[in-house]
């Protein structure tokens, strides 16, 4: 029961803040709603028993990525609202329709999946460690070592790319 209340509350907050993110005029407010959204997603992760992911979500998303967004919004400091100029080729209704189609499709898959027999747990390779954090660490440094290294390379490349893009003179 408590779990259901928590889930519905968190889900409502996530969706509400998400709607605010895409609908607010002021970009700074939009960024703020995004932070709130991410914090509630982190709460959802806690509900799902993924504490490590929740902490990472707050640390990387809320504490890192969104700060970056906020910096850019502050630096860009718009004189006129970006929505002012509209492309005649733009079809806003088509966008809504496409999004509705996506919702229907994904929803249909979910409902169909629900009607199927429940998935049985597929335990991964036997892990010598217990606890959420330790298990993730163990997986990252054994089975997924190469993807992990590739991800770190990706971050390095992104870092250099961002520096090149943002620096005035090289």
């Amino acid at each position, binding site marked *: 029961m408590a*779990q*259901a209340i928590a*889930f519905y509350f968190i889900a409502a907050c*996530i*969706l509400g803040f*998400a709607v605010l*993110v*895409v609908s607010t005029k002021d970009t700074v407010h*939009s960024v703020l709603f*995004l932070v709130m*959204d*991410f914090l509630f997603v982190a709460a*959802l992760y806690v509900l*799902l028993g*993924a504490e490590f*992911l929740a902490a990472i979500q707050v640390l*990387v*998303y809320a504490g*890192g*990525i969104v700060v*970056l*967004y906020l910096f*850019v*919004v502050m*630096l*860009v400091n*718009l004189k006129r609202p*970006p*929505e002012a*100029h*509209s492309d005649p080729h*733009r079809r*806003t209704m088509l*966008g*809504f329709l*496409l*999004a509705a189609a*996506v*919702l229907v499709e*994904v*929803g249909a898959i*979910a409902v169909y*999946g629900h009607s199927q027999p429940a998935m049985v*747990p*597929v*335990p*991964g390779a036997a892990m010598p460690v217990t606890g*959420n954090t330790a*298990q*993730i660490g163990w*997986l990252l440094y054994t089975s*997924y070592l190469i993807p992990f290294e590739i*991800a*770190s390379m*990706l*971050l390095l*490349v*992104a870092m250099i790319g*961002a520096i090149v*893009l943002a620096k005035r003179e090289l």
Partner: protein
Amino acid sequence: MPITTTHYILLSAALFTIGVVGVMVRRNIIIIFMSIELILNAVNINLIAFSQQLQNGIGQVFAIFVIAVAAAEAAVGLGIILAFYRNKETVNIDEMNVMRS
């Protein structure tokens, strides 16, 4: 009523759709980027819900990779936005049409 994986998937679908609407409808490129972050979060919710259902940590490992990619995407994307803004003084994607013939 117990909360099942389907609940999480439906939540994720709704969040995904909101993100898609943001990408399709808004013209402010910063908000479009934020909508993409919402989409990535929807995916992460899915991954972690399945990870819980299947009782193994692989979904969470994937979520970590998604977060890493999101961080890289944000850094490079925002760098591009800044570069564009400095040249054209706008963040409206309808004005980003220099390659249109």
